[in-house]
């Protein structure tokens, strides 16, 4: 897997080398062949594949089951066998498909330039070596954490079960702050550019982050809260969303951009099951109290119920009447004690649903719905119950402005409109002790409110801002 940060900074150099190499080839016949340097996969071949082939041969859409976004995948090949056979251009399908007067690839596009084909052919003949510099794989590490010239958008927030810590999403990292905002405890640097969801396990031992880098990979990170060591694994070719632990902390679930749900064993971070009841991106998940069912929401506007043990789809919890649903559902939270799920999305209305239907479906009914709450302006991106489920906090965005409110769960009373959200709110979290809520979003500022008065307690930018340095990328 190539790191994009590196790819950007060296690509122009690669292009320059490429041009020099073409010049070398064209003059090779009448000049000294010895002057020709070996073709570089990283600097010369990869950019050609990336620009001309990766639109169709990518993890999310592997045409001919072939992926051309990494050296390993190219070697592995697709339906027509390995992409390259080292030293044997004539037996390499990659060379075969792009060569000739009317090459088979690229499909519905101009053939590659002759010099490009010659370059790739020569690279195979020279042994098809991967020269991706190991040192260039990544320039962000725990020792060299990211620098910020602007605060990153806050996409996820999570309080620890003991109400002592507040985990905040950053760029390539998670920022663990003290829950009262009095200081940074730890920077957890990982590979994912985006952290879409943060979740502490109920037993408090793990902080789970799901996310990834858009269009490249989707990752789950488990951080051991005792020593902040990391376990991580990729589960998709694009970012993952909406992580959730079962109440016994043994199973973990998240949604994916390939419309699937991932069920993961916490013990060894292995994939237990992939399920596909949805027809669009899955953005939120939740387990039933007993852990036997999983409830998911997504861009296909539906809340769906499936069985954990066998992955079987059971029911649409929301109405299936055409026109009853508007826009996607983006957030879901289970009531702390009961199998009731609070959801919100494009229509701005928080809605509470019971999980199990106890009456036969009639066309047009919305039987599982328990109640709705006064809609917020724009789209709901996040919501969270307090510790006993008697209240919840919900945040929304109109793209221009944001809103955060606290409601009573039972009588739907609007308790507080939390002030100061001039821009989109993408993340909210209720502190487990019920005393505070935290909000974050487009402006990159964390706001802490007193949950009993609705008053702003503290606001802060969760990262250190470094002034822009001329010439720094």
């Amino acid at each position, binding site marked *: 897997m190539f790191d*994009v*940060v590196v*790819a*950007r900074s060296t*690509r*122009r150099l690669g292009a320059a080398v490429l041009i020099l190499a073409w010049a070398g080839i064209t003059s090779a016949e009448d000049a000294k062949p010895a002057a020709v340097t070996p073709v570089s996969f990283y600097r010369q071949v990869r950019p050609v594949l*990336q*620009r*001309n082939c*990766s*639109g*169709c041969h*990518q*993890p*999310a*859409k592997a045409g001919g089951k072939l992926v051309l*976004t990494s050296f390993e995948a190219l070697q592995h090949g697709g339906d027509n066998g390995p992409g390259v056979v080292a030293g044997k251009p004539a037996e390499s399908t990659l060379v075969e498909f792009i060569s000739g007067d009317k090459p088979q690839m690229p499909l519905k*596009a101009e053939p590659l330039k002759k010099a490009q084909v010659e370059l790739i052919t020569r690279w195979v003949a020279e042994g098809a070596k991967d020269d991706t510099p190991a040192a260039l794989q990544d320039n962000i590490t725990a020792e060299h954490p*990211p620098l*910020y*010239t*602007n*605060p*990153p*958008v806050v*996409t996820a927030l999570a309080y620890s079960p003991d109400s002592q810590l507040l985990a905040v999403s*950053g*760029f390539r990292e998670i920022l663990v702050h003290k829950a009262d905002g009095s200081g940074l405890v730890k920077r957890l640097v990982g590979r994912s*550019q*985006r952290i*879409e969801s943060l979740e502490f396990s109920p037993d408090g031992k793990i902080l789970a982050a799901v996310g990834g880098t*858009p*269009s*490249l990979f989707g990752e789950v990170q488990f951080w051991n809260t005792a020593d902040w060591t990391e376990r991580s694994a990729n589960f998709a070719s694009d*970012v993952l969303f909406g992580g959730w632990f079962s109440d016994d902390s043994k199973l973990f679930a998240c949604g994916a*951009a390939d419309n699937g749900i991932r069920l993961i064993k916490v013990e060894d971070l292995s994939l237990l099951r992939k399920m596909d009841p949805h027809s*669009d*991106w899955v*953005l939120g998940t939740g387990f039933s109290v007993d852990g036997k069912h999983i409830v998911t929401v997504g*861009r296909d506007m539906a809340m769906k119920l499936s069985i954990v043990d066998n992955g079987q789809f059971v029911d649409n919890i929301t109405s299936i009447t055409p026109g009853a649903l508007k826009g996607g559902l983006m957030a879901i939270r289970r009531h702390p004690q009961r199998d009731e799920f609070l959801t919100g999305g494009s229509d701005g209305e928080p809605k509470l649903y019971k999980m199990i239907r106890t009456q036969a479906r009639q066309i047009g009914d919305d039987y599982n719905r328990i109640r709705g709450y006064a809609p917020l302006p724009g*789209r709901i*991106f996040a919501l969270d119950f307090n510790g006993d489920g008697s209240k919840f906090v919900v945040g929304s*965005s*109109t*793209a*221009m402005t944001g809103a955060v409110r606290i409601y009573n769960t039972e009588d739907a009373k609007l308790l507080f409109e939390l002030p100061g959200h001039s821009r*989109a709110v*993408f*993340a909210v979290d209720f502190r487990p002790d019920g005393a505070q809520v935290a909000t974050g*979003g*487009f402006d*990159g500022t964390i706001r802490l409110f007193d949950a009993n008065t609705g008053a702003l307690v503290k606001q802060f930018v969760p990262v250190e801002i470094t002034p822009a340095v001329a010439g720094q*990328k």
Partner: protein
Amino acid sequence: MHTSKLAIYLWAGLICGWPAGVMSAEPPQVAIVELQVQPTSLELTGASDSRRVLVTGKTADGRYIDLTADAQLTVASPVATLDADRFVAPHTVGDTVLNVTYGGQTVAVPVKVKDVTHTPISFVRDVLPVLTKTGCNQGACHGGQQGKAGFKLSLRGYDPQYDYAALTDDLAGRRFNRAQPEQSLMLLKPTQGVPHEGGFLFDEDSRYYQLLKRWIAEGCQFDTVDRVQSLEVIPKSLLLDDVGQKQAQIVIAKYADGSTRDVSRDVGYETSDFEKAVVDKAGNVTAVRRGEASILIRYEGAFITNVCTVLGKREGFAWKDTPEFNFVDTAVNNKLKRLKVLPSELCTDAEFLRRLKIDLTGVPPTSEQTRAFLTDTRDSKTKREAKIDELLSGPDFIDFWTMKWSDLLMSNRKFITEKGVWSFRNWIRNAIATNVPYDRFVSDLMTANGNTFENPAANYYRISREPRLAMENMTQVFIGTRFMCNQCHDHPFEKWTQIQYYELSAFFAGVGRKPGASAEEEVIFSQPNAQVVMHPKSGQPIAAAFPYKHAGIDSTLTDPREQLANWLVSKENPYFAKSLANRYWSYFLGRGIIDPVDDIRQSNPPSNGELLDALTADFLAHNFDLKHLIKTIVSSHTYQRSIETNLFNQDDNTNYSHGSPRRLGAEQLYDAVMEATGSPGTIPGVPAGFRATQLPDGKVDLSFLDMFGRPPRESPCECERTSEVSLSQTLNLINGPTIGDAIAHPQALIGRLVAEKADSKRLIEEVYLSVVCRFPTPAELKQGEEFLAQVPSPAEGAQDLMWALINSPAFLFNR
């Protein structure tokens, strides 16, 4: 120069790219006598204000050639630089000179840089144009109804707020990365830094990349600046002499605050006819073939067209004065002179009579009428004028134009029952017969109330039962525009917006409908909020408003339909009279000056604006007198031109330099067959002798009419009537019962002549007069007589002759 100064100079050059501003060019290949540069001076305000110049060379033989790409450009001092597209870009405040050199000649263009500050990137003015120019928001990509791969933008950026939400808000800001702008998905996708099905669009060094990156780094802000107000193109109208010749363009965007921008490389260009001229992404037009094409220039909801004329080789052309019968001919000929096209001669009297009679009444002249007209000894112009007056006041004219308006108003028993169809037909007939002024005719329809039997005009609202449908039909028929295109998004080729679609519809919200005494009638009445037009996004009721305003609107009216009618039929309405004049013109000349006639838009300019304006002005000056309009058209030399072409008009199809054969419409053809054969046609369900043009609607079962393209009257589109030629039509004409039975009918022409024992000369003469409306030539007569002498029965011979003539273009077409 002092050494240290030189060093500073070189250093400055290295940093800012100057003196790389000297761009080399191809060696001159064309000898020129004069070099011209447009504009003659440049003023640059702000760091992003880059502008181009057009360079034109005049050759010794007086032609102008575009040298924009070939001239050498040099900026005299580092006040400004030349960028990769050869635009002059500001660098420091001050004055300098752009030297333009070609073929040994140099023109100095003063350049003033007033300001070099960077203003924040505007989402509306800067970012959206990039998304449009690079195609992100086109219909086939993210601008489609469902977007693409989960990412949807508004079609060509008509809805900035929606697009802002898509880029910054969807999926919690997935598509931008303020912390590290170059890691933003919206930059990685178009550069193929990550896989992108839409492919590679621009690289990291491009202006577009830098602009988007800067916008992200500045915090992805939204702004509410005004969008572009109008566009100006230089040169206005393009004249290219030779095939393959190129011409660059400058497009200037003008804003409400008075500022301007050179957007030549940022606008979208499209050609209306790629067989005549093509245009590339940078706006360079290349002549393909002699003729005309209009170049549509589109930028952020504003449109402008640049008409491109490819003259081609016209050696030996000399204009010959041709008679001008009225102002129509003057306007037509002015255009022909410019294009070096020579009009055809006047058609013959026989051709004129047939052409006129079919166009005015739907039926060809009888043999007696033809004989009388051809033997009339008055001079041709006098008797033609007399014939025009005679036909315009005759009963057949009323029938035929009743049919045309019944088509447009969709009089169809499916909507208004059979009884309704007859009563609506009679109402239209009466309007045609009394030549009701067009403004009153339309006003009566728009404001119609009451029982549909007592006031048949109210049938209009039985046919258009929903406010939006009533509005769509109204705009297509009466102002010749297609508002249905902006129902779901702003009109992609016009200024009309989605909101205007609903606002205009709201005028019809107060149309109440209740059952009448019988099931066949209905009562139309004004009732506030009988139906409600909802705003497409907010879901709130929307108030009625006009999409454009003009003088002469009566603000005292309160009934919405009264207001609408007052606005619609006003002489000040720029579309109302014009669209009708254009539509009527197309009925006689085969092609609208704006074509299609019901798709008037800025991007579909008239082929002859002077002609359309003159026709419209004359129609208005005569207070919407439809018969006067028709008379003006058919009295012109232009209408009466022969279909015979000459060397200098044979490739003209759009400028009315010669007559154009038009296939007879379905009803015309049926009636012509009956007229020519003398057969008493029998149409089921109507009295004997009833003509096809007299039928109330398309539900009268006559498959012949459907085969030849009778409109089903389900939409107000002029395109419902088809005039194509198909194999099944040809087979029907050759073998079908309609023609065969009509020819052989015992009471038909040949049967009568044979019964009278007519000789072969008379038989042949009568067949020619009846079918092709002229006397046979001596050669045809001789050939015919020889043929009749060979066959056993003169009746069969005459029938065969008639059959052959009916199957000839001279019969099937109005020529």
